[in-house]
């Protein structure tokens, strides 16, 4: 008997099962090595990976990044009073202490640090003799009523209301420019990179917590890219906890399914090994953990568990026929290795299509996930059966499996009616109506891009977004900035022709709905020319005199580069909705088409809104491609596997229904199509097709055995229905925990993936048999040795 089995065994099976200790040893060594690698993996928050580098906007931004230095990377700390206004001695003292404390935080560009206490913050006044001016906080400041009154009048003359001082005089800002690379304070010869997380924590501990406790009348609001990234990294760390939760829930589910602690442990451990290998390989490949790729371990865990369950299910069924765990494991390996491989290939195909989205984090997500599923082939398709061949399955589990096979199942019997000739047409019509309705709804309502106010990465009610909201409401500023780069020849930025064209652009922008205001060196030039003419409003315009223009922009720091060949125009927007971005960028492009000439070019785009505009364009153009590609691949896989167009349609149509419903759900919940949600389509379809493959392969084999459709479907449900249900649950549990992430897009991804996995499962259970009623002819299949890969 044993030799008979040996003969039928394939080369791979013999290789593995004849060398079981070697397999285990190799896996152990690999695990040790990769666990060491995985422990080295670090959060990576590279800004470049989150943006579409190939988009022309971004290419322009990168080309001129050095010329635009310090436009972006500042943190703004608003120190607000709870009672009264800022003109009191205690507030000013707290502000001074905060200013000094910030000065010593690593990474702060100390020379450019700005608050009311900076000597560089000055007031000016036109007098008969010319300009008069001084520091806003005079040298003689002593906290007395008189000096506070002087401070008040200086602030009014300084033009800082709405910038450093809130419009309502109840808060003022400490403006903190940052250095990405700075000299180590301990050893000046060494350069350090700015650690966003450390910096963000320093702000929380040394500034917010300390001074809110010290002065109960102040409230501190902090915004800026560095703070946002710091909060994001903190959010990532919290996600690790979710992994624990998902692990525990899965463990309970797994035990309920197997009734066997040994196999539960075996599945959990081999799947954990898969996760460790995946993380270790990611580190070996030079990738870090970013907010997107950190979701891959969850997916791998869920996929690994579901394949493990198939194995255990198979081994339990085989064990009823033999006493030897080794034989059961070998039989199961023989039976399930191929369908397992096919399912994993389908997953990988789903991930690989993501590579066409030209955004680094998505590439890493795709590569990481592909590595992960490849790893599952080793851990869950090879190592797990080998491990079980030693451990065996508990007698009780085998007993239950036997009973299950023998007994009648009213629930499956009921579900088998989906293949009923009366129910099937109703199902198909219903599905069609739902699909058309949902398609129309999502077409009308689904939007591209981020739709919420504030930083879209974080939840609308997060601390950061509340701070952001405070600053937008109390200062003449917006957090959504689109930067147009005006490129000229060297020394060309101050030419009248350049400046007047910029002026035209700014006015056009002022008149574009969605634009709050625009700022450039023209704004400065006009103000300075006015100032040079004793503040007379009648001179608030560009001069035709080049000397006047040159001196007028001398103080417009940061609004032109050293060579005077590039000048940014900062356009402040009301929001970053896709429609707003599209309208504004379209206006700028139309303007550029009209005004660009030799030596004067208007280039889009930088600023957070510019990046989002580019990202939205990439998303909008990739969406359809991804959909077509992923469905082509999945359909191709099905066609190869089953060699039947009818089977392919039976499997793919339910997936399409789910995709449409997913889009409609996004439209309903106000989630936009964005970097985080676009991969969901590919992941949902790629993983969702597993159900169809499992169900159809069993259904086909029962049809070949000559059963009528409904009966064949009942048998299918009886043998794999439980495993399919369990797989859906496992996958959903794995991703559902993300919904509680502090990071908004992780939560959105979690919600959408959970929806996709569950609905795909129901779609396969409900629609597949109904479609089979119309497309598959049991008579033609009966008794035939089909061309399907699963034909035994």
């Amino acid at each position, binding site marked *: 008997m044993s030799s008979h089995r040996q003969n039928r065994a394939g080369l791979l099976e013999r290789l593995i099962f004849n060398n079981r200790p070697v397999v285990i040893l190799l896996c152990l060594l690999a695990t040790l090595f990769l666990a060491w690698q995985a422990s080295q993996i670090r959060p990576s928050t590279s800004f470049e990976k989150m943006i579409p580098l190939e988009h022309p906007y971004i290419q322009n931004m990168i080309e001129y990044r050095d010329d635009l230095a310090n436009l972006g990377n500042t943190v703004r700390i608003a120190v607000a009073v709870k009672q009264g206004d800022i003109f009191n001695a205690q507030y000013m003292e707290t502000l001074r202490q905060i200013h000094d404390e910030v000065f010593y935080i690593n990474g702060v560009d100390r020379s450019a640090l700005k608050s009311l206490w900076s000597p560089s913050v000055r007031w000016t*006044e*036109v*007098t*008969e003799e010319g300009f008069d001016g001084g520091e806003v906080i005079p040298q003689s400041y002593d906290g007395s009523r008189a000096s506070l*009154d002087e401070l*008040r*009048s200086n602030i*009014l003359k300084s033009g800082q209301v709405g910038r450093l001082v809130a419009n309502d*005089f109840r808060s003022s800002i400490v403006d903190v420019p940052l250095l990405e690379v700075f000299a180590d304070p301990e050893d000046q010869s060494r350069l350090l990179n700015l650690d966003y997380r450390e910096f963000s924590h320093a702000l929380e501990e040394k500034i917010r917590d300390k001074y809110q406790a010290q002065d109960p009348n102040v409230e501190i609001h902090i915004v800026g890219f560095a703070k946002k990234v710091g909060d994001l990294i903190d959010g990532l760390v919290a996600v690790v906890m979710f992994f624990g939760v998902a692990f525990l829930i899965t463990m309970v589910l797994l035990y309920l399914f197997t009734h066997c602690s040994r196999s539960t442990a075996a599945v959990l451990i081999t799947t954990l090994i898969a996760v460790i290998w995946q993380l270790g390989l990611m580190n070996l490949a030079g990738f870090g953990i970013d907010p997107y790729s950190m979701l891959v371990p969850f997916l791998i865990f869920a996929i690994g568990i579901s394949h493990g369950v198939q194995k255990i299910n198979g081994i339990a069924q085989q064990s009823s026929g033999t006493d030897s765990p080794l034989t059961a494991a070998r039989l199961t390996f023989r039976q399930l290795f191929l369908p397992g491989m096919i399912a994993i290939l389908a997953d990988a195909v789903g991930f690989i299509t993501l590579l066409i989205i030209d955004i680094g984090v998505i590439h890493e997500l795709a590569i990481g996930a592909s590595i992960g599923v490849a790893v599952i082939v080793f851990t869950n398709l090879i190592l797990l059966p080998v491990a079980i061949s030693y451990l065996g399955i508990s007698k009780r589990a085998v007993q239950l499996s036997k009973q299950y096979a023998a007994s009648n199942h009213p629930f499956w019997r009921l579900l088998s009616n989906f293949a009923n000739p009366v129910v099937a047409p109703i199902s198909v019509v219903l599905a069609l109506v739902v699909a058309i309705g949902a398609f129309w709804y999502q077409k009308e309502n689904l939007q591209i891009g981020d739709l919420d106010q504030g930083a879209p990465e974080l939840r609308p009610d997060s601390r950061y977004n509340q701070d952001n909201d405070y600053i937008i409401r109390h200062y003449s500023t917006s957090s959504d900035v689109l930067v147009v780069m005006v490129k000229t020849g060297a020394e060309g930025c101050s030419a*009248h*022709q350049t400046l007047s064209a910029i002026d*035209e652009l700014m*006015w*056009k922008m*002022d*008149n574009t709905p969605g634009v709050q205001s625009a700022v450039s060196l023209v704004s400065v030039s006009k103000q300075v020319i006015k100032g040079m*003419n*004793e*503040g*007379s*409003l*009648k*001179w*608030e*315009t560009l*001069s*035709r*005199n*080049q*000397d*006047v223009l040159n001196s007028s922009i001398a103080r417009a720091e940061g609004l032109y580069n050293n060579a005077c060949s590039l000048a940014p125009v900062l356009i402040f927007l009301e929001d970053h909705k896709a429609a707003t971005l599209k309208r504004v960028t379209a206006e700028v492009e139309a303007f550029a088409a*009209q*005004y660009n*000439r030799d030596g004067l070019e208007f280039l889009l785009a930088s600023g957070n809104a510019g990046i989002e505009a580019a990202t939205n364009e990439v998303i909008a153009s990739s969406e359809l491609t991804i959909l077509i590609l992923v469905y082509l691949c999945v359909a191709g896989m099905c066609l190869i596997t089953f060699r039947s167009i009818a089977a392919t349609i039976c499997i793919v149509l339910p997936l399409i229904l789910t995709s449409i419903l997913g889009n409609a759900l996004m439209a309903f919940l106000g989630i936009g199509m964005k970097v985080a949600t676009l991969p969901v389509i590919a992941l949902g379809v790629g993983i969702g097709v597993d159900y169809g493959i499992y169900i159809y392969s069993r259904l086909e084999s029962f049809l070949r055995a000559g059963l009528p459709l409904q009966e064949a479907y009942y048998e299918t449900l009886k043998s794999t229905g439980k495993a399919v249900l369990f797989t859906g649950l496992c996958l959903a549990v794995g991703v559902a925990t993300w919904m509680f992430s502090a990071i908004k897009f992780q939560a959105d991804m979690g919600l959408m993936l959970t929806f996709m996995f569950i609905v795909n499962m129901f779609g396969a259970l409900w629609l597949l048999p109904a479609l089979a009623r119309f497309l598959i002819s049991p008579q033609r299949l009966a008794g035939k040795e089909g061309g399907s890969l699963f034909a035994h």
Partner: protein
Amino acid sequence: MSEPKRRTQAGSCGYSPRRPTVSSFLSLRSVLALCGILAGLPLAAIPAQAQDDVVQYSIESPKAVQGLVLDIAHAGKRLVAVGERGHILYSDDSGRNWIQARVPTRQLLTAVTFVDEQYGWAVGHDALILATQDGGATWVQQFEDRERESPLLDIWFRDRQYGLAVGAYGALLETRNGGRSWDDVSDRLDNEDGQHLNGIAAVKNAGLVIVGEMGALFRSADWGQSWERLESPYEGTLFGALGTARNDTLLIYGLRGNLYRSADFGDTWRAVSLRSAAGELVFGLNGGTLQGDGTLVLVGHGGSVLSSVDDGRSFTVFNRPDRQSLSSVADDSAGRLVLVGQGGIHATGLTAEQIADRPVAGTPAAKQQ
């Protein structure tokens, strides 16, 4: 240092921009087209190349009402206001709704005046002079001189024929034919240093006064033909002058709340003290108007609005809470003030008396001394 260069086609055909542009518009285009063909240039390149030379009309936009507006005047009952980017706006309902006029420039316009319901003129940067004959709805360019690199700052007309414009670096231009031709008559003024001339005003039954940079002060008893330099009561810059309802009486005003009154056409002056609730006014004064009932209203920086019911001997001072700088003021048919300046046109709906009676805003309007 580069002089602003005129764009010419392929170096072959130039054109003089000093000609009245409206009449040269069509011929200019055909000349340019001809040049293009002669130079073997593709025709498509012409519009872009000629961009600076083709008349650029001001852009109509809803935001024009909120842009910088510098002067406002009556054309009969109609209000007409001028400002940045060639914006000219007019209102026939006391400033509630504004219509943007068609204006052949995008330059900053600094002043506007009307002699009756139809005839009016506006001046601006590039030494622009624009004229209208339909109460401000459409405008033509009468004069431009970009090479001056300086603006005209104020304009006065006696009737449909005779008028004077003043501007930076001592510019004084005269027309005797309603603006068909303008002559530079700057040398009529004793102004060796070429000080800016900021304002020109008529004084009842006396003559004209021009004020300017560093206390520059001139008068003409023969309405423009000969001018006499006066001893100025103030060393700092004067931004404007305003004749009152009385013979020989006028106000001159300038930097830092300096305001002087003369009842003898400038022979003697008295400083008018300006105090708001918070103290002495330190904001510069930019413009003013004499209302039909003799009330005088002046406006300036820091949202300052001043009104006098005693022919300018004393003023009450109010600072608008938005503190935006004001440039000029007019009253509508019911005496309600329409202010212009930063932030555009502010139709207050309040008369000078009501404005004066309003409590001063919480933030101090002036520096305490």
